[in-house]
């Protein structure tokens, strides 16, 4: 599983950090960053939830 985030779209709502805190973080400007891509494998459901709850569709999960 690979995750990409579109920082240009992110509106800083923080749904990603709330739902998959091991994977996502918000940088100093409040914009999403993937701080531990490896953690995604441990909890793919949390990552999928973060992606669907993100209000600006800034998170994409690639199943390759």
């Amino acid at each position, binding site marked *: 599983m690979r995750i990409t985030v579109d920082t240009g779209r992110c*509106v*800083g*709502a*923080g749904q990603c*950090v*709330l*739902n998959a*805190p091991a994977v996502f*973080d*918000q940088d*100093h*400007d*409040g*914009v999403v960053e993937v701080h531990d891509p490896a953690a995604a494998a441990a909890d793919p459901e949390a990552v999928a*939830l973060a992606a*669907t*709850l993100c*209000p*600006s*569709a800034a998170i994409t999960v690639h199943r390759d």
Partner: protein
Amino acid sequence: MTSTGPRVVDFPLRRPGEAFPPPHYQDYRGERGLVVCHLPNGNRVWLVTRHEDVRAVLTDRRISSNPDHPGFPNISQTMGVPRQEQIPGWFVGLDSPEHDRFRKALIPEFTVRRVRELRPAVEQTVDRCIDGLLAAGTEADLVADFALPVPSLVISALLGVPPADRDFFESRTRTLVAIRSSTDQQRDTASRELLRYINRLVAIKQKWPGDDLISRLLATGAIDPREMSGVLMLLLIAGHETTANNIALGVVTLLAHPEWIGDPRVVEETLRFHSVADLVSLRVAVEDVEIAGQQVRAGEGIVALVAAANHDERAFACPHAFDPARTERHHVAFGYGVHQCLGQNLVRVEMEIAYRRLFERIPGLRLAVPAEELPYKYDGVLCGLHALPVRW
């Protein structure tokens, strides 16, 4: 069925105190999911009622939040979204890219981490309000003495209002939202006094910056000082009555379902269940669009009815049941898309602490009147309670 036109319904959509959630919202979601409503000012708007359609509308770039567009569905002269010309900086009424400048400048103040740092201050505020309740005796109005002051005190601390001025700030914001007990003129005066106060505060922070939101916002240079008062008023107004109503209705629900008291999952479920910001997400089509198979023309107003979407049986199992253990998390109580509530993480912390401390410190809390007699409030936009008489 296909030959008949869309169903037309009256405004206001709900009556205070009627069955909750309103049973007719279920009918609205049936048939086609879209109904037409005539606002008091004669405007004809589309109400979007299904969860899937609400999310689609709130992320569609052909649909605007800007009240400058003809057909924008302001509910009345005073209820709706002001234009930039009226209140510069009221960014909920701007579309991308203009909107993004404000949002980007503000999000560092509302990140999950930042809000976590505010927890001790929120807890202190909540506890001080409870101290006040306990000191005053064995009964209280939880709206006036708890649900309203908590968010107001939290937001004034966040903005950097000096502690000595917070009572002034709180009393004016309270007048502003008391639609039953204050007159138009009192509300007008309160709003002028607040605006004057905010302008003065901004001037002070320009000269003597501190460690607070206003100073940091000024330092970014992204927001024109002329727009600052609009931004700050928006933060104040968007976060006051919404949070208060949700806390008050949530307490009533918890008293009816005491088995959930102490479970942090009640926060998300009271948000979904009550969906207090019923008629807040106002939009207008700027191009022809199709919503739920219905043609909506450019210039037609649209309201995303989040309370209807949050009780959509297509999106939530047994939507009318209050069930904090449910696994669906995709409610739209905070809206969706780029305008999704900026204060949502702060609200979550406030509500979690408010419910927890209230029932920890006042375990004997109960309603002082039968639940059917509670004065429910619905002004056409927000749902809540005028008062919540309790005793312990």
